[in-house]
């Protein structure tokens, strides 16, 4: 995939105002059902997490510490908001795990589940290091953000990015996004927000996924936003497991043979 065609999201959490327009626009465009209108009682986040029918989720973090370089009128407090989404990993755990070939990489370098192929085995659900993809109980198949594959093919930008009023969600060519993100980090650091950094912008940043096509600008540790600190496509680690299985299989054949031979001696 050439960088010129690869598209993605740059989500700048420092300008997110928590309006959830992205959640609504996504639900509306993709015709996703509601999740039951539950009330968490924890924060303004009543969505909780991404799932099979929620492909954008705004996290609300209330911290008893101020944001660096920011003065508040009411003591030590800061409010972080982040619109979470499928990361469209360069090395995607779900795509590697999918046994049917239902999950593919599109011409835009995004990761897409073909609904006409998916047989609902659920393996991608366990393989995603971000807890994004999930299986719908009413439908039996796995679903997640498509990076608006349909809209992109019609030269439209994804619904969430279009709805975002602050340009916290920026959609574009990956190359341009990375440039813009790097500039934004420099700008914030110059303003005193020294903790600002990019999460998953490239392979050096996040070797386990080889980088994310939907990456983020964060100002606190990833865990605070419910993001894993060092996510890894599980397939990266599985070589040792296959080798161990090979040893155990040889052991089984050897011990079985020895048991049979030694019992023959007594015959």
């Amino acid at each position, binding site marked *: 995939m050439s960088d010129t065609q690869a598209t993605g999201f740059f989500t700048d959490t420092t300008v997110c105002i928590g309006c959830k327009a992205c959640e609504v626009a996504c639900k509306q465009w993709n015709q996703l059902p509601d999740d039951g209108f539950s009330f968490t009682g924890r924060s303004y986040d009543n969505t909780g997490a991404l799932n099979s029918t929620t492909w954008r989720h705004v996290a609300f973090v209330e911290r008893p510490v101020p944001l660096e370089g920011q003065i508040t009128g009411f003591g030590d407090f800061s409010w972080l908001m982040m619109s979470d989404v499928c990361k469209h990993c360069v090395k995607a755990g779900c795509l590697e795990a999918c046994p049917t070939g239902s999950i593919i990489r599109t011409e835009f370098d995004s990761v897409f589940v073909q609904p006409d192929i998916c*047989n*609902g085995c659920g393996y991608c*659900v366990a393989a995603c290091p971000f*807890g994004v993809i999930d*299986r719908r109980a009413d439908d039996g198949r796995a679903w997640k953000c498509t990076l608006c594959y349909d809209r992109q093919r019609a030269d439209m930008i994804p619904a969430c990015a279009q709805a975002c009023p602050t340009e916290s969600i920026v959609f574009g060519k990956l190359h341009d996004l990375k440039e813009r993100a790097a500039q934004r980090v420099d700008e914030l650091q110059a303003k005193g927000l020294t903790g600002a950094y990019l999460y998953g912008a490239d392979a050096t940043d996040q070797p386990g996924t080889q980088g994310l096509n939907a990456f983020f600008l964060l100002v606190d540790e990833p865990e605070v936003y419910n993001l894993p600190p060092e996510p890894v496509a599980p397939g990266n680690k*599985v070589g040792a497991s296959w080798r161990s299985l090979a040893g*155990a299989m040889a052991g089984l*054949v050897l011990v079985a043979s020895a048991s049979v031979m030694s019992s023959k001696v007594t015959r």
Partner: protein
Amino acid sequence: MNAAGNPPGHEPGSPTYHGLPAIKTPVWTWEVPAYFYAGGAAGAAATIGAVLQVLDGEDSARLVRRCRDLAALGTTVGTALLISDLGRPARFLNMLRVFKPSSPLNVGSWILTAATGLSIGAAVLSRGEGPLARMGELAGLGAGVLGPPLAGYTAVLLAATAVPVWQEGRTTLPVLFIASSTGAACSLLELGDFDETELTAVRRLGTIAQVVELAAAKAVERETGRVERVARPYDEGLSGALWKASGALTIVSLAVDQVTGKRKGGRVAAALFGSAGSLALRFSVWHAGRASAADPRATFESQRA
């Protein structure tokens, strides 16, 4: 350093987002651990049958036949369990529209499909005569070749997920599954009536398998215990109870087997304890994965370690 993740009253450790899970809980239902047991025992039985066929020829005809029946039954039941666990069971065959080494589940589907066909072929055809019987013998050998991977690929399948307790046990889990599958097959075989030599072979293999199973379980605890939080499900909750019960049942099975020798009553008791131990082990590993996925600190701390 942030102060956000740990409001007063929360346990120490890595920060979390309101304590919510960082990854999804596997959607698999009870059919999956039940399949791990049935498919595993079937794979080991097919292997034992083929080894006997090659090394002992006609002398163990009865035991070979029992192995083939067990393999045919286990693979058939296992396939049915797997299909019923799918969100879209009618699309099971989509598993076979590609061959994809990066997906242990895809590789396993091919192994299971071939092993099921060969095991049924061996069990049915070898009851015939002439060329049919010879085809049955060949199918039995083929099933025997696929037996070991069938008995153990499920451990690799679990290791290749984002679930901390499965991923962090990736080198020891395959040994545990192979040993437990072999023990399970031997237990089921010991329920039958065989001659002295056949019984000796099955009991010897079964004893070794159960000893290795106990050792491998300790090794899994050690490997996952690299990060204390990750190994916790093998100690606490339903998965911990099943894990300990599995160990105890296996020890009781070994003890009964050693004390009662080849007497039928003792053999049946040992076989039942052994089967229960192996079954409990699969359900423990499955429940451990669910508990591990629900614990965000297990996810975070395994990555920070």
